[in-house]
């Protein structure tokens, strides 16, 4: 039988692959953006607070784009330090708000939101592409991430996925390998496998839903 996680030798497998990636791992430089990210303990504390003060977890109702920006740019729950385990334990209705990596810029935000609305309207992707990448729910993130557990791309489809990296502004689904990357990876698998998206279209989606902020913080790729 294949040694699944509970089996010691499968556990070794990660060690084995780690050998392969060790050269890379040790050279990692912690991104500067991590400094402004919340620690996991802070995230844990944020969850109940967010639930308890629902009104404060949303931008003012009917707020202008500028007011939404002003609100969201001060939020920190959209942290790139969020792990999958933490996502599972968060309330589904919790909002992940703010930029994950660098400060939000109004110029970018004011272009992004209408563009996302147009895209979702034209493509019927409102259930797959967030309307505001700086303000999305845990449930939405979980839905996208779950596609990774069920969709196995064919090699032709995989090629579309990896080619999309080349066209994406961050040269990847996200500017760093965080929970957003995994969500956008799942989203891309769904769009490629079930909706026949091309690499350019996937990259377009990734660029539109960029939630890293407007600072220059590439993924080191």
């Amino acid at each position, binding site marked *: 039988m294949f040694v*699944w996680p509970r089996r010691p030798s499968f556990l070794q497998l990660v060690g*084995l*692959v780690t050998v392969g*990636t060790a*050269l*890379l791992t*040790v050279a990692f430089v912690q991104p500067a953006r991590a400094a402004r990210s919340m620690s996991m303990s802070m995230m844990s504390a944020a969850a109940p607070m967010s639930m308890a003060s629902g009104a404060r977890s949303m931008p003012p109702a009917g707020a202008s784009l500028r007011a939404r920006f002003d609100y969201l740019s001060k939020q920190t729950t959209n942290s790139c330090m969020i792990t999958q385990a933490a996502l599972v334990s968060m309330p589904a209705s919790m909002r992940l708000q703010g930029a994950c990596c660098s400060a939000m810029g109004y110029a970018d935000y004011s272009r992004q939101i209408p563009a996302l609305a147009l895209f979702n309207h034209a493509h019927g992707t409102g259930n797959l592409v967030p309307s505001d990448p700086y303000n999305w729910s845990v449930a939405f993130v979980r839905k996208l991430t779950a596609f990774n557990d069920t969709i196995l791309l064919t090699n032709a489809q*995989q090629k579309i996925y990896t080619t999309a990296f080349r066209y994406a502004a961050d040269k990847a689904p996200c500017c760093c*390998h965080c929970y957003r990357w995994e969500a956008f990876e799942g989203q891309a698998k769904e769009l490629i496998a079930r909706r026949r998206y091309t690499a350019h279209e996937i990259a377009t989606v990734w660029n539109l839903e960029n939630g890293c902020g407007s600072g220059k913080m590439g993924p080191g*790729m």
Partner: protein
Amino acid sequence: MKNRTLCSLLLALAVAAPAAATGAPGAPHLRHSKADTSLATSTLLNKSTLGSGWVVASHSTSGQVVCDNAATPNESDLTETGGASGPLFTRPEQAIAQSTHVFATSAQAATAWARMMPPKLVICMEQEVENLSAMSAPVYVTAWYRLRFAPLATRVAGYRVVARATTTKKTKETVYLDVLLLGHDRTMTTLILSALKAPFSNGFEQGLARTLAAQLNKG
């Protein structure tokens, strides 16, 4: 040389983690008997089988890794009567591990086999590789494919996942993760091979498959 030291360190960290829970959800019932444990042990590869250059890592073989539950087959209705894991064999930029499991009946072994076949197995392999990612040094899968083997045992299958890993020095390395599975009667053995930069040769893996098949068929 420095790299090799770092590799060893990280390997040690990876395998020294707490042992996995055998009673995890979806795990088969464990009713190990002496005879079936011996049977499982008899199928394990040894250093001489692998050829020159391989060393047995001195690390503990227990560890913990996360494969999403959704990608893990449910075997809670099956009974495992024997199991054994071999040591971790390494040589520069390559490593091999093996485990063998014996089920209560041939039918159960066949069921377990069927449940692990793709997409689940490959999805899990992909997740394992991508879980090696660090924040600014992603590891992402670029391809997977089936490895071809002659019908050496009742059941034979092999898969390879290829991934790209990026360093902060803007260099990229290719990581290969191969899984070879052979099953005969109630026994199933899994060989996990990982390599950096270049994959294991087809000839080497075919040779290992032949050796394993012979050991399985003997049992």
